C-alpha cells in the first residue's frame, strides 16, 4: 500500500470529481439533495486536503527522510521555523499547498453561502472543485508529495509510491535541506501569502462562471464577490512586497524588483484585479461595462493560473522550453480549458450582457475609471508581451528572443505615473459629468499645492524628470485625499452636531469602501515615492585593508576587523565596520558571508544602516586570505517607504473589509441621538 497521505489525496480527487458531477446534475434536474451532496463532497475535500497537509507537515517536522520530498527540502540542522516552511519549498509541496488553500476557500464559500445564492451555488461549487481537482490530479499522478525512497538490490536508490519488487525502505541519515538563500523570514511567509492571492481569485471566478451559466447577470454576483476580490488582491500585493523584501535582504544586489518572469507572474493578475476592483464600481453605480467586467475577472483568474504555470514549469527561464517540465503540458491543457469554456459562455450571454448605457461626458468619474482601466490593461499587456516574447519567438522562429529589463522600466514608468495622476484626479470629478466651472474650482487647490511642491523640489536641486513628476504627482494625490476627507467632514458637520474628528471617524464607518479606498490610495502614493528613490541611488565598490576607509555620499566607512568562525552548519566570515555620517559615528555594522557546507553554497548577509530617508546597504562581496576584503556599498534612498506602504495598504484594506455591522450600529446610534433634520438644500 502507498502512504496513507497519498491514499487521502486519491480519495480527495474522487470527492472533487463527485462534487462536480453531483452539483451539476442537481442543478440541471433541480434536485436539492444532489446539490447538497455535491457541497458535502466539496467540504469533504477541504477536510481530506487539510489532513494530507497535516500529514506532510508531520513527516517534515518528524524528519521522516524515507519520504523523498522531506529528504529533498529539509534537514536536521535547519531551525524549526524553516523546517515548517519547507512544506512549500519544492514543487510537490507547493502544489499540495495550492490545492489545500483552494479547498479552504471553497469550504468557506460554501459555508458562508449555505442559505444564499442557491441558484448560483451548484455552479460555484463545480467550478471551484474543477480547480481544486486539477491540483489534486497533479498531486496524485504527476507530482506526488508522499513518494518514498527505496533501495534496490543493486544498491540504487529510487523513488516510488509503492514498494518496488526487491526494494527495501531507504532513508538517508539526513536530508539535503532547504536552499540557504530561502531561509529568510520574508521568504518563509512570501509563498503562502502569494498563493492566498493566486488561489483566492478562484472564488470570484467561480461566481462569474455561475452567473454566466445561470444567466443571472444583474449586479448581484458582483456584490457577492466584492470582498472575495479584495482579499486575494490584497494578499497578492503583500506577497509581492514580501518577495521584494526578501530579494532586497538576501540576494545582495541592492534592489527589490527585476522584472523577472516569476515576479511578472504575480504582477499580471494583480494589474487585472486592480482594474476589476475599479471598474466594478461603474457597473454598480451605472450598470455599464458589464461585458468588460466579466472579461476582467475571467482574465484575472486566467492570469493566476498562467502565473502558476510560469513559476512552476520554468518555460521562460529555460532556453528550450517545451521539453523541460512534465507539469507544463497539464497546465497548458487547463489554461486552454479556461479560455475555451468561459469564452463560449461569454459569447452566448453577450446579447444579455450588453447595456444601452453609454458615457455622457469625457470628464466624469466613470470615464476616469475607464481611463484607469485602459492604462492598467496597457501595463498588463506590456508586461505580458515582454514576459512571453521568448515563447512567441521560439514558436515562430525557433530561437528565443528576450526583452531586457530596460524595456519594462521605459514602458511601465510613464504608465505608473499616469495612474498616479488618476489616483488624485479620479475621485475629484463627480459621476456623470462635471462642468468646466466646477472642475476649475475643484482642481485649483491641489494643483496649487503640488506646484508649490514642484518649486521646492527644483530649488532643492532635483533635476531627474520622472522623479520630479512622481514627487509632484504624489503631493497632488495626497492633497486631493486630504481635501476629500476635509470636505466630507465638513458636509457631515453641516448635517449634524459632530465635531471635526468625530465626523472623520464617522466618514470611515459610513462609507468604508470610499474612505478605506483613499487610505489604500495613500499607501500607493507612499509606494511611488519609495520607487522614486531609485532615481537617486548610488553604488560603490572598494577593496579595503583593515584600518582603511571609504567614502560614499556623506558616509564614511572604516574597516575595523575581520574574523572567520565555523560551526556544524557553516563557515562564517565576519567583518566589522564603523559607519560615520557627516563625521559622526552612527553605527557599527558587521557585513558577513556564510558558507553552507551541505549545500556547498555561500550566502551573503546584507547589513543595513536604515533610516526612513535612506538605506546604507553594505555587502561583503569578497573576503580575502590576508583579511582584506572587497565591499560593495549602495545608498538606496526612500526604500523603507516601499515597505511602509504595505502597512498602509493593509490598514486601508482592513477598513474596507470591516464587517457591515459596525456601519449599521453607528447609523442606529446616530438616529437616536440626532434630531430630525430639514431636507438638505
Amino acid at each position: 500500500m502507498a502512504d496513507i497521505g497519498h491514499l487521502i489525496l486519491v480519495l480527495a480527487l474522487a470527492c472533487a470529481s463527485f462534487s462536480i458531477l453531483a452539483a451539476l446534475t442537481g442543478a440541471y434536474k433541480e434536485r436539492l439533495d444532489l446539490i447538497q451532496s455535491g457541497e458535502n463532497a466539496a467540504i469533504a475535500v477541504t477536510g481530506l486536503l487539510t489532513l494530507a497537509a497535516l500529514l506532510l507537515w508531520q513527516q517534515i517536522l518528524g524528519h521522516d527522510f524515507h519520504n523523498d520530498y522531506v529528504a529533498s527540502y529539509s534537514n536536521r540542522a535547519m531551525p524549526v521555523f524553516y523546517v515548517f516552511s519547507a512544506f512549500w519549498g519544492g514543487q510537490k509541496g507547493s502544489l499540495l499547498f495550492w490545492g489545500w488553500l483552494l479547498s479552504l476557500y471553497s469550504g468557506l464559500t460554501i459555508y458562508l453561502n449555505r442559505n444564499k445564492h442557491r441558484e448560483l451555488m451548484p455552479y460555484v461549487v463545480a467550478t471551484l472543485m474543477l480547480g481544486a481537482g486539477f491540483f489534486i490530479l497533479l498531486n496524485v499522478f504527476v507530482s506526488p508529495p508522499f513518494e518514498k525512497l527505496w533501495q534496490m538490490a543493486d544498491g540504487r536508490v529510487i523513488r516510488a509510491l509503492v514498494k518496488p519488487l526487491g526494494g527495501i525502505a531507504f532513508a538517508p541519515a539526513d536530508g539535503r535541506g532547504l536552499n540557504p538563500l530561502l531561509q529568510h523570514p520574508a521568504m518563509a511567509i512570501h509563498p503562502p501569502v502569494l498563493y492566498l492571492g493566486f488561489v483566492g481569485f478562484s472564488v470570484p471566478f467561480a461566481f462569474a462562471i455561475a452567473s454566466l451559466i445561470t444567466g443571472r447577470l444583474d449586479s448581484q454576483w458582483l456584490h457577492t464577490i466584492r470582498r472575495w476580490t479584495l482579499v486575494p488582491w490584497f494578499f497578492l500585493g503583500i506577497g509581492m512586497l514580501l518577495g521584494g523584501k526578501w530579494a532586497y535582504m538576501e540576494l545582495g544586489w541592492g534592489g527589490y524588483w527585476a522584472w523577472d518572469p516569476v515576479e511578472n507572474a504575480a504582477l499580471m493578475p494583480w494589474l487585472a484585479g486592480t482594474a476589476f476592483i475599479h471598474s466594478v464600481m461603474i457597473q454598480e453605480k451605472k450598470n455599464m461595462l458589464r461585458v468588460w467586467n466579466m472579461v476582467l475577472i475571467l482574465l484575472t483568474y486566467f492570469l493566476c493560473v498562467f502565473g502558476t504555470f510560469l513559476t512552476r514549469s520554468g518555460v521562460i527561464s529555460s532556453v528550450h522550453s517545451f521539453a523541460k517540465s512534465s507539469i507544463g503540458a497539464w497546465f497548458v491543457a487547463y489554461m486552454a480549458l479556461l479560455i475555451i469554456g468561459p469564452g463560449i459562455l461569454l459569447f452566448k450571454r453577450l446579447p444579455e450582457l450588453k447595456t444601452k448605457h453609454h458615457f455622457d461626458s469625457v470628464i466624469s468619474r466613470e470615464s476616469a475609471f475607464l481611463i484607469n482601466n485602459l492604462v492598467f490593461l496597457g501595463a498588463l499587456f506590456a508586461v505580458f508581451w515582454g514576459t512571453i516574447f521568448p515563447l512567441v519567438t521560439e514558436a515562430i522562429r525557433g530561437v528565443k528572443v528576450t526583452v531586457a529589463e530596460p524595456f519594462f522600466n521605459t514602458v511601465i514608468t510613464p504608465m505608473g505615473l499616469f495612474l498616479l495622476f488618476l489616483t488624485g484626479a479620479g475621485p475629484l470629478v463627480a459621476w456623470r459629468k462635471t462642468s468646466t466651472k466646477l472642475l476649475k474650482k475643484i482642481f485649483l487647490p491641489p494643483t496649487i499645492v503640488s506646484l508649490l511642491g514642484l518649486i521646492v523640489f527644483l530649488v532643492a536641486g532635483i533635476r531627474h524628470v520622472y522623479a520630479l513628476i512622481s514627487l509632484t504627482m504624489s503631493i497632488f494625490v495626497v492633497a486631493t485625499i486630504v481635501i476629500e476627507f476635509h470636505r466630507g467632514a465638513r458636509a457631515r458637520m453641516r448635517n449634524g452636531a459632530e465635531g471635526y474628528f468625530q465626523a472623520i471617524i464617522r466618514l470611515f464607518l459610513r462609507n468604508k469602501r470610499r474612505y478605506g479606498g483613499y487610505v489604500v490610495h495613500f499607501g500607493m502614493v507612499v509606494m511611488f515615492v519609495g520607487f522614486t528613490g531609485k532615481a537617486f541611488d548610488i553604488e560603490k565598490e572598494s577593496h579595503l585593508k583593515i584600518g582603511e576607509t571609504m567614502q560614499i555620499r556623506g558616509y564614511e566607512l572604516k574597516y575595523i576587523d575581520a574574523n572567520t568562525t565555523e560551526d556544524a552548519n557553516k563557515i562564517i566570515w565576519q567583518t566589522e565596520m564603523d559607519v560615520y555620517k557627516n563625521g559622526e559615528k552612527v553605527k557599527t555594522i558587521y557585513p558577513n558571508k556564510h558558507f553552507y557546507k551541505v549545500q556547498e553554497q555561500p550566502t551573503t548577509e546584507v547589513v543595513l544602516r536604515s533610516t526612513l530617508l535612506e538605506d546604507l546597504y553594505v555587502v561583503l562581496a569578497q573576503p580575502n586570505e590576508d583579511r582584506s576584503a572587497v565591499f560593495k556599498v549602495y545608498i538606496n534612498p526612500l526604500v523603507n517607504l516601499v515597505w511602509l506602504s504595505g502597512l498602509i495598504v493593509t490598514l486601508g484594506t482592513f477598513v474596507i473589509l470591516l464587517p457591515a455591522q459596525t456601519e449599521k450600529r453607528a447609523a442606529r446610534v446616530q438616529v437616536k441621538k440626532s434630531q430630525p433634520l430639514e431636507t438638505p438644500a
Partner: protein
Amino acid sequence: MVAKKTRVAFAITLIVGALLWLTIGSFGDNMQYFVTVNDVSSMSQEELEQGVRVKGYLVPGSIEETPNSLEIFFTLIESGETMRVRFDQERPDTFVDSSEVLVEGKFTDAGYFEAKMLMAKCPSKYETTDNYDIKDYDPTTHQTATEGTD
C-alpha cells in the same frame, strides 16, 4: 449627443494608441537573443554584437579570481561546447560549481564574453534540484542516475 460619443471614442483611441506606441516603440531597442553556449558558434557576428543572453553550466573549478577586485573569469559549458566569460561585479550566492548560469552581454575582440549581468539558477526555481542523489550528478551531461521520474 453624437458629438459627446465621438469625443469619448476619440479619447479612448488616443489613450490606447499612446499605450501601444509606448509598448511597441520601446521594444526594438531591448531585444536580445537567448541561446545556449553551444548555439553561439552558429550565430552571425551581427547578431552577437546586438547583445545576447547565454545559458550554460559553470565548469567546476574554472573560476579565476583577480586579487583585490571582484573581477573573475570563468567557463560555461553546454553540450560539449565551452565559452570563456569575464564578469566584474559581485556574483550572486547561487553562482557555484555546476550551477546553471545566465549571462547577458557581448563578445569582445579579446576572445571572451563580457558579461554585464549574471544570474545563476534562481533560488525560487525549486524543481531544478529535484533529483535525489546530487552526488550522482554529472556536470557535463547534466544527468543524474535517478532522473526520469519527473
